[in-house]
């Protein structure tokens, strides 16, 4: 089976990201979100509002679980398995049977298209962020929303640089948990 161009390109970016290359990792996430949006959008055409929420949830899950990827595995299979898991979770929550008529089993389809048009997410991640404790929330707010570097955020909050990094890392895990809770 010939690898698709998207597989090769995304795999390369992701593996560099796993080694700590933030630029490659950001490029990977950007391209990945396009693919996810198209993939999920086609399968959730009944609920266009849910698509962007699910894209975000998948991105967060893939980020938090990226240590479960091994570079000898096709990235398509890994991405598809997570997107499928999260989508089934959503469909189950909606306890809808009709939606399952569209087969979810075609893993190659996950990189087949990409969609740039992001509709607004319904779930307010920023709102969920507010419910996190300060040690997680502040690093995320400063580094992300205010665009500060880790060093600047450390100076501003009086936290150490490693505490900022740990705060972001744990905060993202906590955020995924909050999504899980708010869904059930």
């Amino acid at each position, binding site marked *: 089976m010939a690898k698709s161009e998207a597989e090769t390109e995304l795999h390369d970016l992701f593996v560099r990201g796993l080694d700590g290359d933030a630029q490659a990792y950001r490029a990977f996430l950007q391209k990945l979100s396009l693919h996810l949006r198209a993939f999920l959008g086609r399968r959730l055409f009944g609920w266009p509002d849910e698509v962007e929420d699910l*894209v975000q949830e998948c991105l967060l899950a893939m980020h938090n679980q990226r240590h479960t990827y091994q570079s000898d595995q*096709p990235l398509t299979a890994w991405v598809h*398995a997570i997107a499928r898991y999260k989508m089934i979770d959503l469909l189950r929550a909606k306890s809808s049977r009709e939606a399952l008529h569209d087969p979810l089993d075609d893993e190659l389809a996950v990189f087949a298209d990409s969609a740039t048009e992001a509709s607004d*997410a319904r779930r307010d991640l920023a709102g969920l962020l507010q419910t996190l404790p300060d040690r997680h929330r502040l690093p995320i707010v400063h*580094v*992300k929303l205010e665009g500060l570097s880790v060093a600047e955020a450390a100076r501003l909050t009086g936290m150490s640089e490693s505490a900022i990094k740990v705060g972001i890392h744990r905060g993202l895990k906590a955020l*995924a948990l909050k999504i899980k809770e708010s869904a059930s």
Partner: protein
Amino acid sequence: MKTDDLVSLLAADAAPVPRRAASQRLAMALLISLPLSFAWMAFEHGVRRDLLQALFWPMFWVKLIFPACIAAAGFVIVQRLARPGVRVRSAWMGLAVPILALWVLAVVAWFVAPQDERSAMIWGQTWRVCTFNIAVISVPVFVAALATLKTLAPTQPALAGAAAGAMAGGAGAAVYALHCTELAAPFLAIWYVVGIAVPVVAGAAIGHRLLRW
């Protein structure tokens, strides 16, 4: 929050990630929990006194190697199920083959044995406690395996829990074999297998709920 903002946020957390985290964490869990299982067996039941002698009996090795194979296969299957998009494939054979081999051995031993010894081969001296003891001894490995799975990403939580149970049950039975004095293949084919099945069923039931992410 816009998806682009989320992407920048995630990219800010781009620290290097350990490779082969699934098998490493599971190996670590085994390394910590197996001594606990052994300690419980040694403390509560005691290693059999004639262990040195037993080393020369083929059936003692069958009793040790059979559950060890189950534990090893369980390990391979768990670390595969813990990673999204990885199929278990032939690793299932690692569970099926040892069990089938033991059953064949048990049937042969049963037919070869004289009529009046047959019931002793099934019930032994300890059938009442064997299953329970194996299940209890497997608890440390069971807990450690599920706790580790919780940090990974099983997309089939019940199946992953069951495989963790097989790993724990196999390990528990292998440890218990150092105490247990039963040597008949039919006994092992029934009570050891049931003992291992207990954590498997428990793992499926608990995993179904606990391992969602």
